[in-house]
């Protein structure tokens, strides 16, 4: 297991330069946004001197590298300053929204994984039959479906016609159903495709034939021997999708007016609320990198060959 431990540590260290790069890009890009935040913040009758004062207070007068170091130093402590407009600390706004998006994504991912993997196996066991084509078409529909349109359709069905579920908002578990269903269906489509492809690939492998040749029962061959291998690429896809969900939730969150991170970022972009945009993007990108790292580590657990590599 020391192989594994070494691998885990190396993989985590490898993520650090990427994260630094991400933080630099986030930091720099924010300074390319149009509109001067100091000017925006000042009351209409403020004089130039007063605007300058505000600029100083926000540290916008310091050289860029110094601002970056301050920014990173604070970010590592989990401090992202204050929202320019409401005066709340960014953490106060960020973490609840992050938690919401995380809850949404985890639910959607769980849903997507279960449905997707089952669909993928179902199709792969009888390739090129009607049921395979049905699953393949369904998943192609899923990945071609604009997620916001799907959301609108689900609202039309479940909120407008059936009056079963709220069309938006948050607070109760009921509010999570439609958004996570929307995201999850798209996720299921990707997972289903990946599972099918990978399962087909694995089922054609020698070792599956070997397992059959030794008379191992189908249950064991398919759900243990093949699936464990087939899940390796699925884990990558799932990791990517999870990252996509964290960020892509912005569309779903907009449709369902769900107070998640994506919406927080978009609203902050509209309002030119620098600290929130910075922190939000940084957090999403960090999560994305973290998920990818976690996926690689998970890999090592599923696939012993990786540990050496």
């Amino acid at each position: 297991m020391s192989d594994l431990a070494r691998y885990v540590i190396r993989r985590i260290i490898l993520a650090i330069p990427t994260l630094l790069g991400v933080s630099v890009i986030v930091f720099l890009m924010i300074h390319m946004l149009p509109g001067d935040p100091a000017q925006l913040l000042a009351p209409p009758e403020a004089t130039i001197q007063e605007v300058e004062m505000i600029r100083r207070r926000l540290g916008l007068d310091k050289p860029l590298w110094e601002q970056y170091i301050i920014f990173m130093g604070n970010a590592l402590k989990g401090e992202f300053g204050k929202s320019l407009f409401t005066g709340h600390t960014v953490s106060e706004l960020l973490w609840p929204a992050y938690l919401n998006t995380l809850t949404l994504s985890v639910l959607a991912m769980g849903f997507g994984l279960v449905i997707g993997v089952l669909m993928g196996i179902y199709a792969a066991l009888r390739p090129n039959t009607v049921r395979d084509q049905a699953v393949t078409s369904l998943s192609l529909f899923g990945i071609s479906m604009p997620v916001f349109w799907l959301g609108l359709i689900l609202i039309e069905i479940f909120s407008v016609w059936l009056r079963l579920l709220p069309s938006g908002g948050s607070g109760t578990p009921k509010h999570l159903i439609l958004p996570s269903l929307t995201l999850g269906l798209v996720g299921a489509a990707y997972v289903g495709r990946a599972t099918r492809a990978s399962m087909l690939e694995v089922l054609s492998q020698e070792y599956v034939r070997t397992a059959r040749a030794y008379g191992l029962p189908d249950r064991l061959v398919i759900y243990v021997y093949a699936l464990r291998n087939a899940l390796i690429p699925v884990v990558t896809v799932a990791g990517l999708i999870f990252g996509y969900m964290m960020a892509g939730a912005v569309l779903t969150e907009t449709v369902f007016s769900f107070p998640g991170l994506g919406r927080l970022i978009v609203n902050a972009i509209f309002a030119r609320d620098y600290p929130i945009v910075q922190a939000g993007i940084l957090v999403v990108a960090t999560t994305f990198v973290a998920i990818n790292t976690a996926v690689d580590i998970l890999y090592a657990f599923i696939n012993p060959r990786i540990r050496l590599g």
Partner: protein
Amino acid sequence: MNAKTLALAAVVIIVVVAAAVLFMAPKPTPVERKVLRVAMGTDIVTLDPHDVPDNPSIYVISNIYEGLVEYDDKLNIKPVLAEKWEISPDGKVYTFHLRKGVKFQDGTPFNAEAVKANFDRLFNNKELANRNRLVPFIDRVEVVDEYTVKIILKEPVATFLNLLCHPAGMMISPKAIKEGVDLKHHPVGTGPYKLKEWKPNTYIELEPNPNYWGGTPKLAGIKFLVVPEDEARVQMVESGDADVAIRVPAIDVQRLKQNPDLNVNVTRTIRIVYIGANMRSPRLQDKRVRQAISLAIDREAIVEKILHGVGRPAKSVLAEELIGFYDTGKLKYDPEKAKQLIKEAGAEGLQLNLWTPKGRYPGDYEAAQAIAQYLEAIGLKIKLRVWEWGSYVAELLKKPEDASPDRDLFLIGWAPSTGEYIGVFRPLFLSESIPKFNLWFYSNPKVDELIKKAEHAPRDKIVEYTKQIQEILLDDLPAIPIYNPGDVVVYKKGIKSLYYIPTEVILTKYAYFGSGG
């Protein structure tokens, strides 16, 4: 079965029956003190009444803070912290007799010194967004005795009491001011409710102020829920997840009216949505072009089709409810005349930019697109641009020399939160207000003079001046009034004394659940 068992059984039965009877017996039902849940569209910005830039903050603040005087739902002035007042014959000195026995929520007594401390805060603190509402008019504030205070104006202002109804006139605990409490997050007023919790972007919850001078508040609390999606707010009231929904889409009015459990209140506002015309744009120099634009727009159709009847076509730069309103009859729909004016001005095929925010005012973005169609119909070429509100404001507030050369026409709304005409004329049309809210860079000495006269005119002479001002403005048309949006509030039947003030403020502090609900 022996006697002992029998006795035991009897006891058990009696106890059970008695308990059941006790449970089922009708209990006297006290008037229910519930929490009023209000679904609103955006989170509040601040709880500091002197610094508030937005209406949602005022919804909340008006439960916590009170002013000397206050508007009722018809824009009449009524006494609150001042019991009565006298105005000197020259109109410059206002003497207020304060209500006795009022305490701030931190226990500080409310008195004349407290009033002075609040005005001092406005005078001394230049960063406060709302100081301009009052400070330019006031010369000084004098404490006469513990419960009497004098406000001396620089010049008479006919609508000074209206100005005091603005949140800028609300009273903050002098102790909190002195101690430098973070008033943005920790309000200390005299109102019936006080802050319990503000969870950003989620809710603001208020609890009753047990020491309120007007008696114990009738609600167990007020919870303002932040629900940005229009449809979601409606749905929450329909499903019982909220009691009140603010800014309900007009398109839902017909449907909601059929719901027997709901009250649908279509209210009037004092907001006018204008198409601003940059007076310094080379393309808009000719007055006839601006007049043609005004004549090209079918305001009735916009109100009917885009506002779905919730609102009225604008008749002037002022809303009809405001003191000083005068209908010049100039805002008509006459596309033929418009075409003719364009021809006369030699402006056929003139390319103009039209800017609009989206979602800031009811129907803004939709109306801008409709207006673009109307203008193209009289032979202009329109390039539409939708802005995010933050950069829109930043761009519009730029000095004329820094302003984008593309600024021609832009949609902007204005509601004087003071609820009177000065709040329109002074910021929007006075030459001095360039480069602030005079977004059209309009400068007319005659208008400047008339505005100042109107400000200081005795109350019965006001319209004389405002009529002239409106005649000129509707001829020059730096800002082309389009519509006066209404507002829709939906609430559960049984809620009483929920007021809507035309300054676009929902007043919840008097509300209670009646027997019906």
